[in-house]
């Protein structure tokens, strides 16, 4: 299962951002995942507490937004929703389509808790 290694890579990225911003901890992590990314959102969700334990992202919430598969047809120009194994135009049945969305595995944003300022009295 590669979801754990994807998750570790995610946590590394998130922690790096928290460090860059001098944050105390991470509150929330938002992802956008499509069915054609090869990443299983549920497995990622399950792996997250283990991958984030002991990091600045421990205790943070992982929110995964699922993106539908959409294809744009080169033959008739229509944009339709599609299925992972069936990326054919829903309007005219042509298989000359390009993927508009559905292969995303994006870290969209993180919400950080700022470190308390102790330097100004």
């Amino acid at each position: 299962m590669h979801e754990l290694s994807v998750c570790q890579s995610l946590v590394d990225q998130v922690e790096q951002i928290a460090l860059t911003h001098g944050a105390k901890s991470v509150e929330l992590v938002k992802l956008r995942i499509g069915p054609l990314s090869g990443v299983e959102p549920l497995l990622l969700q399950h792996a997250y507490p283990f991958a984030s334990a002991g990091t600045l992202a421990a205790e943070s919430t992982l929110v995964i937004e699922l993106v539908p598969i959409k294809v744009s047809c080169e033959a008739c120009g229509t944009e339709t929703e599609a299925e992972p194994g069936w990326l054919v135009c829903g309007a005219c049945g042509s298989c000359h389509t390009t993927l508009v969305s559905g292969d995303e595995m994006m870290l969209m944003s993180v919400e950080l808790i700022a470190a308390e300022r102790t330097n100004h009295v």
Partner: protein
Amino acid sequence: MCDTCGCNITPGNREFAYKPVNGATAVAVLKSLLARNDDQAIHNRQHFDKHRLLAINLMSSPGSGKTALLEATIDALRDEYRIGVIEGDLETENDAKRIRAKGVPAYQITTGSACHLDAHMVHDALHQFPLAGLDILFIENVGNLVCPASFDLGQHRNVILLSVTEGDDKPAKYPVMFRAADLVLFTKSDLLPLLDDFSPARAEANLRNLASTVPVMQLAARKALGLQPWLEWLRSELAQQHARVDQGETTRSGIQAGVMRLHEAFR
């Protein structure tokens, strides 16, 4: 794009940017979850391009005939090209030994528990493996139709093998993998007469339903059947690689083009 400066914020994604939410500060990121792997892959590709070699990632289920294809390819191209092979397996040096027995340098990566190669593993191998003088570097990925597709290794092309004993529905069942192909090979074609349920036409139709337009070939490496189109494809790809390098250009394998387009959509 970079992590923190906000240069990747557009009207379409502004909702994710710097919005304070109950004491927390939201930071827009908009990077692939595999950004670190992808950065390493870009570096690997620079190594390959510096040596003017063509790097090909072979992916398939376990036992579809990746190593057998390499053995037959080495026999056929021995006098034409210098070939090197990086082997990825969970355990054992078996595949690297089979390649070395053909007189070709081979480096074995044993991944232990990881069911795929990643760009860092390949980079470690590159620095222990003489790239100088090679024309074609094959990377035989771990036999697995699922996760190897997600990890760019820096290769220029993905070749996916589907042996005729696996069933012609595999492209429909593993769309992420088959969408990543630049070339699909139906292997062990010598067994086709024995199988009444594998239809090459149906397998190809299942691939086309993924909106894939890549070439499809049928061959039997162990019987040296149908190798010519494959060898021609390699020759043509190597010529294209030389042309690209001479123009200071490079290319990524199938799925990466998709990812590139995706990132552009965020500009």
